């Protein structure tokens, strides 16, 4: 062992003046408290926590647990209302999911929350063998799915669906908004099997109540019909898909939106029904292009002998940057603007146009 460790370096002494304080306003890493709601958008606070509380009134076997992230997964709403039914496991995600399995083994119905990255990357073995294999009614709740934080790769669960889709018997739900979450929570508890919910937390946009829609586990829903383009979308990207469809309507491009809140099992019938078409088909997901909705849809088409091309709107197969969420959504193609320009470019490239041929695109 060396004893020379004092010799090489003495800290360089520097003037104690901090760097200059005059600087232009910069976009900030929205970090852990990021919201993807648009400015002025209608939102609902902590829909998951409130839905769980409501469910708990009717079902005494509902319990909650978290791994030092109750406050950051809206589980604190349940913890504060039902302290005797909430179990704090500390920051230990493997133990969290193993414990959830144990609770279910003795007849309780647990909702276990942490961030998506930790539920999937860190604790997958426990999810797979202790929860999924016995087919337990454990509901794993992962916050910050996909790209919903600017904090960097450690917290950006860009591949959570890819990890989990291969897990036999696991139901995967990617809700669009507060309406989806409120309706999904009781449905997940009612379904007697393991589930994973991609949680949107905090001030969550509320958009689906403008449509004739109810969440049904395992079912896709066509929120709008359209003659020119089909967007097959899941999660918060359905909100963006609907916005894009409205924008394109102004250009006389008629866009259908099929919302697919359940990624697995996929509603293949609904997917085939909209994708067996000569319209332009895009998939939209808040997830890497590898192993998510795009490839689920692609395999569905291929396995059914349908040779249609689909265009994926998804995150690239990369470790993403840290930064402000709106910047990142733009850069990686998840913004409404990106969808609109992808649709326009694809229509042009394929020689297809919207209803009003030749209309110059106005962005």
């Amino acid at each position, binding site marked *: 062992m060396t004893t020379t460790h*004092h010799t090489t370096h003495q800290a360089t*002494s520097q003037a104690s003046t*901090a760097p200059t304080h005059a600087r232009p306003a910069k976009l900030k890493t929205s970090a852990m408290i990021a919201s993807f709601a648009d400015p002025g958008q209608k939102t609902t606070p902590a829909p998951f926590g409130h839905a769980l509380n409501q469910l708990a009134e009717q079902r005494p076997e509902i319990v909650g647990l978290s791994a030092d992230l109750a406050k950051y997964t809206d589980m604190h709403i349940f913890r504060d209302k039902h302290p005797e039914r909430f179990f704090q496991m500390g920051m230990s995600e493997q133990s969290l999911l193993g414990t959830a399995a144990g609770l279910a083994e003795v007849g309780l119905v647990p909702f276990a929350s942490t961030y998506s990255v930790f539920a999937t990357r860190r604790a997958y073995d426990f999810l797979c063998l202790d929860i999924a294999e016995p087919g337990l009614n454990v509901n794993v709740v992962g916050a910050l799915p996909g790209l919903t934080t600017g904090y960097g790769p450690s917290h950006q669960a860009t591949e959570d669906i890819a990890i989990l889709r291969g897990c036999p018997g696991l139901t995967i739900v990617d809700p669009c908004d507060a309406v989806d979450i409120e309706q999904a929570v009781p449905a997940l508890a009612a379904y007697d099997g393991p589930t994973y919910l991609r949680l949107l937390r905090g001030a969550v946009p509320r958009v689906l109540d403008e449509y004739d829609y109810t969440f049904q586990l395992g079912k896709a829903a066509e929120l709008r019909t359209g003659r020119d383009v089909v967007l097959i979308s899941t999660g918060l990207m359905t909100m963006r898909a609907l916005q894009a469809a409205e924008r394109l309507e102004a250009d006389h491009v008629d866009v259908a939106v099929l919302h697919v809140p359940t990624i697995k099992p996929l509603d293949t019938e609904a997917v085939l029904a909209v994708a067996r078409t000569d319209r332009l088909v895009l998939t939209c997901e808040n997830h890497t292009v590898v192993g998510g909705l795009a490839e689920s849809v692609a395999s569905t088409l291929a396995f059914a002998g349908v040779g249609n091309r689909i265009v994926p709107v998804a995150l690239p197969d990369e470790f993403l940057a840290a930064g402000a969420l709106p910047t990142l959504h733009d850069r990686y193609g998840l913004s409404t603007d990106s969808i609109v320009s992808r649709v326009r470019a694809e229509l042009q490239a394929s020689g297809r146009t919207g209803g009003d041929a030749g209309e110059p695109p106005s962005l």
Partner: protein
Amino acid sequence: MSAPENDRIARLSAAAQRIRGYALHMGEVQGQGYIGQALGVADILAVAYGDQLRFRPEDPQWEDRDRFLLSIGHYAIALYAALAEAGTIPLEELDSYGSDESRLPMSAMASYTPGVEISGGSLGHGLTVATGMALGLRHLGNPARVFNLLSDGELDEGSTWEAAMACAHHGLDNITAIVDVNALQADGPTAGVLRTEPVLDKWQAFGWHALRVDGNDIAALVSAFDEIADHQGAPSVLICDTRIGCGVPLLMEREKAHFMRVEEHEWQIARTQLEEGSPR
């Protein structure tokens, strides 16, 4: 204390104050963040970088450097301040903390942040990687040492204890763990989230040479680190009890929060309190 020893303490105390100043500056850039932790851990970093580590600030890849692994990615604000004090990160660059395109994201990244050994953000990884570095350096005959700064929250993770057992099993006396016990984690005080005490006994039971000091007492830190440097045959851990917001009474007195909110006008107050050398 001897005169040179007094000088040593005085020099490190001044460095710790500058580190606090830089951290406040970065906190203000983002208007939020892990400033309480940074102020609490500043003295530890001042002693580590200013007194204990062998490294070349201009050559962060130098093969024979001592490795300093930050387990706790969210403490990056503190590490950047220490690396700025050390000369590895240019002072002006602190302005970019947490901004788009910055090399200094809120959680440090091994792939592009200068002076950073591991990509942070997921807790409970540091000691496992440190174990590999210590094993590897020893295997290669490289006398460099490996330091790992972890948090009390990281004691919840099984992986920390898996690595702790491996370090003791392999007799890695080239590894030093430093545990920042600020008694806080994300959902609240550690005692209420998941009891970790008695921390010293746990490490000892795992076969570590374990010391516990006031982590905001520079003199105590220096003598503990000196003792550890001479210890042979087993890995060492320095358990440091720190005070969140140390050096800035405004932030020390506020309700303890993992993610502390600081209002715009409060940054100036905080800076003034720090410069006045308010009681800690």
